[in-house]
């Protein structure tokens, strides 16, 4: 088959300059890449942040040019200045942040942007724009303005903007990293459909469930390609993937774990269906009834730290846009608990948590933190913010000080702590978030994305709140960054006894750490139960549109086929134990 992209011995280095423009150093990002992408392929590129995958992608359409080596697009050298617009037209690019790639104030004009640049005739632009918008299923929104759209919709508009050029190949650099699960599936659906129509797709991603849908997966680390093969081939090498700081699908991990216990199962299963088929071949007995655990959480005398009573919040009261974001919610959270908060976008979960530290004032109802009604007459609302610390999504965007130290000290200083107390609080918080001392005097803007995130988290932890509320603390990080941040938070929870509310779209992340789960749906409390109980209702969770971990879906398939391993399966570890129990017996 003909190759659309050929990369030969590609090397690339960023040069650093001093103030006079002299080269002071070079940072080699790509260290000899050889790659051929046949026409029509769906290629997924994996690798942790900083491995060079985005840099590689920018060579495919001549945004960057090789330090040495060559990139050919349809046989044309991508560094050829004369043909640069042919190349950019043939290889379209879509980026991570949906906001930062839309240029025009109207959807259809944005889609037309590339065609206008290329000097295409007006009638032809109109035809191609309409086609492109229909292809990504956004035609009905053609006259909307981008800021009225959801993240997934904006990303589809961005794809349409590229598609209008009728490219042979579309390169997508983490297009779903900033989207909620619904947006992600919209975008993935679009990508797969385009690929079926013959467009070559190169998808850079951190999500393994997206990579398994590709024809071919390459893994990059430290500027070179370290693995290359079909998803089945690549994901079967669990140890090697982990060495490159990457995830594997949960079922693959399960099979791998079972093999280690001497069970003869293939490791290269990627979907729950495949995995179930293999497991059902094993001889097994019925699961013993496990004694139901006593209801401990509600019988103990631990005091409540955060309560909301009949909480209702309405936006834009008295205007035609009035809408109820939170509708009569009652929740009591006990001191010291690790609570996971889940619900899809617009479920009211963000509104709910912003009430807990007094950023929003309830339309009706009460918020009680540490026994005090925070909106009582004479109550100090700023004191509540120190009691209940809130870390927003993409918290690194709030950093502003000259040094990391000063930034972390912002909260404690606002609390009115003395120099020494502040110093102690800053150093402790930095240590909690794994920030070494030498980092404290650096500018926060010089740090990597993951480090910035941890500085922002430390900034709130330094205020030593009784309740720490985290809105998607791991959003947009790579698998390793995600695990590090969440592990540090969990460690902090254990050591300090602080009550934690972890808001996330990822059920996998929540079940790994939370004792109790709070589910919001359409502004109402769907349930607030311990994790096992919540998972006895997985069917209902799926009905309200929440994704459940792959391993839970596997347990359902097994149960339907007379191999019950229990309804409370949400971690690979537990699934493995249960399976070993019933097949060894």
């Amino acid at each position: 088959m003909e190759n659309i992209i050929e990369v030969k011995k590609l090397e690339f280095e960023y040069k650093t300059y001093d103030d006079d423009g002299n080269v002071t150093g070079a940072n080699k990002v790509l260290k000899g890449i050889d790659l051929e992408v046949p026409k029509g392929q769906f290629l997924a590129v994996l690798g942790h942040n900083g491995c060079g995958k985005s840099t590689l992608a920018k060579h495919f359409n001549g945004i960057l040019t090789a330090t040495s080596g060559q990139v050919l697009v349809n046989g044309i050298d991508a560094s050829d200045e004369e043909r640069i617009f042919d190349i950019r037209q043939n290889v379209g690019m879509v980026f991570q942040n949906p906001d930062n790639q839309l240029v025009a104030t109207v959807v259809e004009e944005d889609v037309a942007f590339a065609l206008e640049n290329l000097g295409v005739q007006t009638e032809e632009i109109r035809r191609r724009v309409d086609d492109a918008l229909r292809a990504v299923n956004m035609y009905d929104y053609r006259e909307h303005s981008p800021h009225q759209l959801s993240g997934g919709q904006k990303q589809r508009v961005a794809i349409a903007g590229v598609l209008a050029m009728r490219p042979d190949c579309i390169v997508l650099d983490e297009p779903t990293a900033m989207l909620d699960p619904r947006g992600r599936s919209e975008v993935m659906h679009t990508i797969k459909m385009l690929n079926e129509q013959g467009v070559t797709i190169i998808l850079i991603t951190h999500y393994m469930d997206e990579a398994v849908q590709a024809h071919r997966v390459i893994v990059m680390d430290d500027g070179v390609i370290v693995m290359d093969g079909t998803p089945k081939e690549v994901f079967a090498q669990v140890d090697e993937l982990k060495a490159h700081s990457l995830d594997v699908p949960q079922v693959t991990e399960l099979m791998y774990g079972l093999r280690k216990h001497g069970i003869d199962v293939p490791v290269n299963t990627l979907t729950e269906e495949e995995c179930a088929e293999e497991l059902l071949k094993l001889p097994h007995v019925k699961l013993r009834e496990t004694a139901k655990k006593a209801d401990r959480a509600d019988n103990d005398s631990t005091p409540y730290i955060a309560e909301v009573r009949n909480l209702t919040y309405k936006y834009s009261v008295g205007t035609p846009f009035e809408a109820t974001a939170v509708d009569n919610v009652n929740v009591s959270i006990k001191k010291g608990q690790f609570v996971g908060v889940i619900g899809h976008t617009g479920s009211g979960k963000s509104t709910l948590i912003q009430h807990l530290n007094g950023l929003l004032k309830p339309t009706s109802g009460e918020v009680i933190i540490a026994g005090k009604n925070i909106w009582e007459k004479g109550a100090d609302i700023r004191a509540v913010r120190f009691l209940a610390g809130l870390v927003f999504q993409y918290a690194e965007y709030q950093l502003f000080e000259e040094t990391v130290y000063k930034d972390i000290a912002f909260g404690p200083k606002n609390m009115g702590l003395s120099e020494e107390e502040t110093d102690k609080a800053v150093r402790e918080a930095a240590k909690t978030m794994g920030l070494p001392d030498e980092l404290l005097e650096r500018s926060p803007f010089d740090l990597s994305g993951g480090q910035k995130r941890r500085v922002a988290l430390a900034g709130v932890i330094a205020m030593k709140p009784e309740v720490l509320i985290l809105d998607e603390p791991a959003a947009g990080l790579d698998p390793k960054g995600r695990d590090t941040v969440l592990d540090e938070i969990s460690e902090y929870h254990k050591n300090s006894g602080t009550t934690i509310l972890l808001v996330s779209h990822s059920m996998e992340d929540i079940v790994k750490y939370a004792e109790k789960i709070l589910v919001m749906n359409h502004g109402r409390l769907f349930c607030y139960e311990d994790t096992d109980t919540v998972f006895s209702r997985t069917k209902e969770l799926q009905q309200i549109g929440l994704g459940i971990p792959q391993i839970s879906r596997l347990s359902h398939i097994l149960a339907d086929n007379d191999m019950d391993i229990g309804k409370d399966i949400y971690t690979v570890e537990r699934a493995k134990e249960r399976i070993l129990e019933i097949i060894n017996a």
Partner: protein
Amino acid sequence: MLNDITIGQFFPGKSVIHRMDSRFKIVLVTVFVVILFVAQNFWGLGIACAFITMVYAASGISFRMILKSLKPVLPIIIFTAVLNLIFVKDEGDPLVAFWVISIYWKGIQTSIFMMLRIVFLIIGMSLLTYTTSPIVLTDALESLFSPLKKIHFPVHELAMMMTIALRFIPTLIEETNKIMMAQKARGASLDTGGIIKRAKAMTPILIPLFVNSFKRANELATAMECRCYKGGEGRTKLRVLKATKLDFFATALTLCVLGMVIVNNIVF
């Protein structure tokens, strides 16, 4: 609080005024301003009033919106009226005289005349923004000023900047809100203390906003390059401004009104 700001005051519609070529609208609004200044007496203003009333009726913009457009300039209107009232002198005895102030009949006339002139001026210009989306307005300005390209005036670049600004204003407002919330959560007090304290308290909001804007600008520039952006040279348009019979009719009508006002000046 920042959510209340709406950018532009465009009311989408399908009236004849909405359908007009925006370049003609800009030029004709300018002609209307000229009419207002050519008119030397109340008859002239009366003609302008009849004209603009008719145009508003055709546009379907409600009377309430006219009042709304006047609200922000009310102080200027009152100020002008008072100045004229006090300083316009006439021969003969004043109508009212106390302390150093004396008011003449002519002063009252001039004052009302100037007031009406400003009111019609604002109403006329508002009609343009009410019936033309900012983006179309930008296109029209780019097209009207394109002759200036000959003297190397960056017409296309300015229009592009304008478009991007319009695109990002809502995004930046949203972002400002988020950053404000985040800093409040860290105990920043944004609305207490004196002016200097408050200005200082803005630092934690402005710095992240600037840093993020530079990042956005960078990413947007790359995204634009990827979509073959190379400046205004050889660019075509999805939406082409096209003059129709309607526009020529409107032009004829407006020139007629101008003529009437001039004739009226000569006759009276």
